[in-house]
């Protein structure tokens, strides 16, 4: 069974195509969004989702969030005394989503369509594929997030549209795509983005603004860094959400027996986020320029991603485009829905008329060359593009190069992906060497052909027309080869973790939330929460399902009450 998964920085979701609809699958807590958070303690007990997020405040050293930003790197996260790569943590989230589908449909899914930011580079994409494999899912296709949203947008709409712009501001990544839909074709005209821009950055800016205000004495600086960061981050997240609806919110940090707070206004927030808002402009301009489309000629601006709910962002978008954005898609669900549609297309579901998706290559691909500068010296490491960015894929392009020295023995082409003029600023994908016959400089020409297909596979062919010698290279990640042992090893390592049984998921989440609230409040409230926790624990020990359900309902009710009222005084 094919499922569509939105693996996001802050939240993930899974959807299936059923009965002519893209349907999001609820998780064990009944929510359609599962936070991308993982917590593992020293006893290898694992929490995934909302419970893990709640544990962030109390156990920052055992909890990881926003690990999507580490995909494609070798950075390790230490949880509960063990090191995990970003792929492992993503695999845990994927496994939880898969279990949700089993619960919901009774069928175990074996294949998936996973979304990635359009601006994810080669390494990051391969890491996502590996995460799927570790989770036991065959990744049939990786689809770009804006394209998925475009699929979900106006699906019912059979009319042709002028190109529209998808503005996807997620938790950690920002993507812009200009898409055109007509006659059952979804055509991406151009993509641009920023892999380091998202809702998290707004939180960081707010935290940086408020930290000196709430804590002039510097008490926070004495805490260990992980804890301090987690506390500030969560406070920023809460304040930010509040500022979505009200003009002034409280920025509150509670730890040990101290409580630091200060008010923050929407204007303060907007000013602090000025530089971030400015950064939103660049990818939009780049995408439009590459497509040769005027902003005035767009038919709609489609907002995707939770961060686009912020009035700050909406105002900026309105300013940029001179109009109000479209709100017919659900910003949190659109990407998962699009992934489900793609899954349905792959499964050839009859309810879907044939829809063809054509995408573009978001990065420039080329090789490094040597240039002669004005003084006659040689300048190494100059990037020579072969496939310009935003060319429709599949694409095949050729460029010609020649030798630079006499009697050169070989030509070595290093293949790079990126936008910088010097290859030192780009990412190297591979290298190909071809021997050349000895001749004076400039007499030997080589023809280099890049072929990039829609699944993101790059093939390089080098031909020397003089001798007829050819060399071929397919850019395959070493770890991408069917290295069963490696994947099996990671899977086995994750299988050793202890998971809570699904039935107790709600209880676990309730307990995690209660413990977090305990930390959040002081004095009287803290004592009250402590009593509630003790009661709940007693009910759990009794192992009486009725009693447990009642105790849980009461606990949740109490927590809702106390969180709604907010701290007294």
């Amino acid at each position, binding site marked *: 069974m094919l499922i569509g998964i939105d693996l996001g920085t802050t939240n993930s979701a899974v959807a299936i195509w059923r009965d002519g609809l893209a349907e999001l699958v609820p998780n064990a807590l009944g929510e359609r969004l599962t936070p991308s958070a993982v917590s593992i303690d020293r006893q290898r007990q694992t929490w995934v989702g909302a419970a893990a997020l709640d544990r962030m405040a109390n156990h920052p050293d055992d909890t990881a969030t926003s690990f999507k930003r580490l995909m494609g790197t070798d950075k390790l996260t230490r949880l509960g005394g063990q090191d995990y790569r970003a792929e492992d943590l993503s695999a845990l989230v994927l496994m939880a989503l898969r279990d949700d589908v089993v619960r919901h449909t009774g069928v175990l899914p074996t294949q998936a369509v996973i979304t990635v930011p359009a601006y994810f580079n080669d390494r990051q994409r391969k890491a996502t594929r590996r995460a799927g494999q570790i989770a036991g899912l065959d990744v049939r296709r990786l689809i770009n997030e804006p394209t998925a949203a475009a699929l979900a947008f106006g699906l019912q709409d059979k009319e042709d549209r002028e190109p529209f712009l998808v503005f996807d501001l997620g938790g950690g990544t920002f993507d812009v795509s200009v898409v055109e839909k*007509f006659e059952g*074709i979804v055509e991406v005209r151009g993509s641009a983005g920023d892999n380091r821009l998202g809702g998290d950055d707004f939180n960081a800016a707010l935290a940086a603004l408020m930290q000196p205000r709430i804590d002039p004495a510097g008490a926070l600086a004495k805490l260990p860094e992980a804890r301090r960061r987690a506390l500030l981050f969560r406070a920023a997240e809460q304040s930010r959400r509040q500022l979505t609806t009200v003009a002034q919110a409280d920025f509150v940090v509670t730890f040990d027996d101290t409580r630091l707070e200060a008010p923050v206004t929407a204007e303060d927030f907007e000013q602090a986020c000025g530089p971030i808002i400015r950064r939103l402009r660049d990818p939009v*301009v780049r995408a439009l320029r590459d497509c040769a489309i005027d*902003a*005035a000629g767009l038919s709609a601006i489609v907002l995707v991603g939770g961060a686009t709910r912020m009035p700050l962002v909406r105002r900026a978008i309105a300013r940029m485009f001179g109009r109000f954005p479209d709100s017919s898609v659900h910003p949190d669900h659109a990407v998962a829905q699009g992934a489900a549609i793609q899954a349905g297309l792959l499964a050839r579901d009859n309810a879907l008329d044939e829809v063809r998706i054509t995408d573009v290559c978001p990065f420039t691909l080329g090789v490094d060359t040597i240039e002669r500068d004005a003084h006659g010296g040689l300048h190494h490491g100059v990037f020579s593009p072969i496939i310009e960015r935003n060319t*429709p894929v*599949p694409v*095949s392009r050729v460029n010609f190069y020649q030798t630079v020295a006499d009697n050169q023995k070989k030509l070595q082409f290093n293949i790079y992906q990126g936008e910088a*003029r010097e290859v030192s600023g780009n990412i190297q994908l591979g290298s190909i060497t071809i021997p050349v016959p000895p001749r004076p400089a400039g007499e030997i020409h080589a023809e280099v052909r890049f072929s990039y297909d829609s699944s993101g596979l790059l093939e390089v062919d080098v031909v020397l027309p003089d001798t007829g010698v050819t060399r071929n290279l397919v850019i395959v990640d070493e770890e991408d080869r069917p290295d069963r042992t490696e994947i099996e090893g990671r899977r086995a390592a994750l299988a050793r973790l202890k998971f809570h049984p699904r039935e107790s998921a709600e209880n676990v989440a309730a307990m995690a939330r209660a413990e977090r609230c305990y930390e959040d409040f002081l004095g009287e409230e803290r004592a009250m929460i402590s009593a509630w926790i003790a009661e709940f624990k007693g009910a759990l020990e009794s192992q009486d399902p009725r009693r447990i359900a009642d105790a849980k309902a009461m606990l949740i009710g109490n927590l809702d009450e106390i969180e709604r009222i907010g701290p007294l005084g």
Partner: protein
Amino acid sequence: MSRRRPPWSVLGLDAGADAGAIRKAYATRLKAIDPDADPAGFARLREAREAALRLARRAAKPDEPVPEAEVEAASVGVWPYAAPDFDAGAASGDAALTVNVLQPGTGSAPAPAMIFAQARSAAPAVTPIVDPFAAVIARRANAAPAPTIASYPQPRERLHALLLGNGEGDEAALDEADLVAAQDCLRLILRDAVQADLARHDAIEEWVADLLAEAWPRSAPLLATAADSFRWEAEAGKLGERPAIAFLNARRKGYRFQEAVLDPKHIYHKAWLELQRPGRKDLLSRLRTTRSDVDKLLTGIRRNFPELENHLDPDRVASWQAPARFRIGLRKGWWVFVLLSAAVRLAISLSQPDAAPPAQLSPQALLVQQQQQGRAEQAALAAAFGPGHDRTWLEQRQPELAQVIQSNVRLQTEAGNPDAKVARIASDLVRQRLFEARDAVKGDLLERIMRLRLAEMKVAQRTGPADCRAFVQTALLDPGKAALPDALRRREQVLAVELAEAGKLTPIERRTPRSATVPGRLVSEVLDVTHLSIERVGAAMQHKASDADNCAVTTALLQATLAYGGKEREAILRTL
């Protein structure tokens, strides 16, 4: 190569179809192919669609220019778009934003501003031309502008006038008042841009970039503000970097480098200061910095920030870059050599004393000496060959040997050595020749020579391993340690006479080392006699063991070989 089909035929349409039909045709055709399997076909289809749409657009609106997303670079001084005036509320931001922007310190970092103002005030009195690059860069103090800004009705025109007002050639720096006015204008323009939509923002950005680039270096103080607002540094080094912005980014990099290199801890700091000193390279220059540092600094500056070279003194740069001049001309070199060698030769000859002429003896002394020599010679020959053999006899048979003995005798007597010693030297010499003759003789003579050798070897062995070794190598016996018994001496003499008669006492130029394989029987005999281990015997046979071992083994082997009857006998004997 097939001719490019016109777009209409690729799409299967009639010429002049409209956009909708083009899209439909493209869609149908796209669904019919698999792009991954046929990328060339897909590319053709795509191109055809683009071309067809372009044609359709042009056909639909022949008079209007094709809309371009790329904003044309604004011509100087003219606002490209009929944008509403600043005062008319184009910037429809809320009041909060307006207030914020007008407050000091918004968004502008104190930059390499005031370069020129400083230059003016601190310029050395000598330079008649105010060269904006002449002064050392100084950081501007954080002087905040006045809280109230006079509102400029036309900030862009004003800014343009300030920067480029007096024509293109005005490179003088902005003075205080002008600078403040320019910065205020720029701030207003930037605020407008921030609140504008994409197209307008783009237009303003291009206009500002072009203006700053054109008014360079007068516009330098404004660069940082504009660059931070538009985030030009993010575009630095990218493929799509626009030319004006690339220029401004490079200038900014130059400033940064200039500030960095003034820090004493910078690696090229010393080289930088050195190159700024006026005049050519002097003796102290070498102490201040090295040639490689200077070279690296200059390469870096020339490649990345060429304008910084204006800060350096050209004479000094040239003198540092000149190649080392130590090439003396060839002709001069030759004469120098000749003179030098002559001088050396002269010096040597002067320092050497002349060889003293031989002292003249009186005739009587000469006679005595001659008699003495004759007597000594007689004794020597008798010692070597036995009595009854004189020089005449030897001269007839071995003239060369006679000559050698005679000259030896003469030397020894002149040196005043007693006759006995002379005789001994002669007999040693003869003995050497005798043993050397074993290479040239065979049969019975060889036998007798080797037996004599063995006997003498034993004598030598008795005195000690060192003497034994000396005997084996040189055939010399130290009389102080071991005197040859008379019987042996007689045998030696008889043998010498025989060899002299046979003319075998000739000197050998060079004795090539001989080697022979020793049969196991002999080896076992040697082992029995010497009671040494096989390793030591083996080493000794190669003369690699200790003297005692070598001696013992050689002696034993010689003895065994003489008793041996095999075919290797002669070969082995010759090696011993």
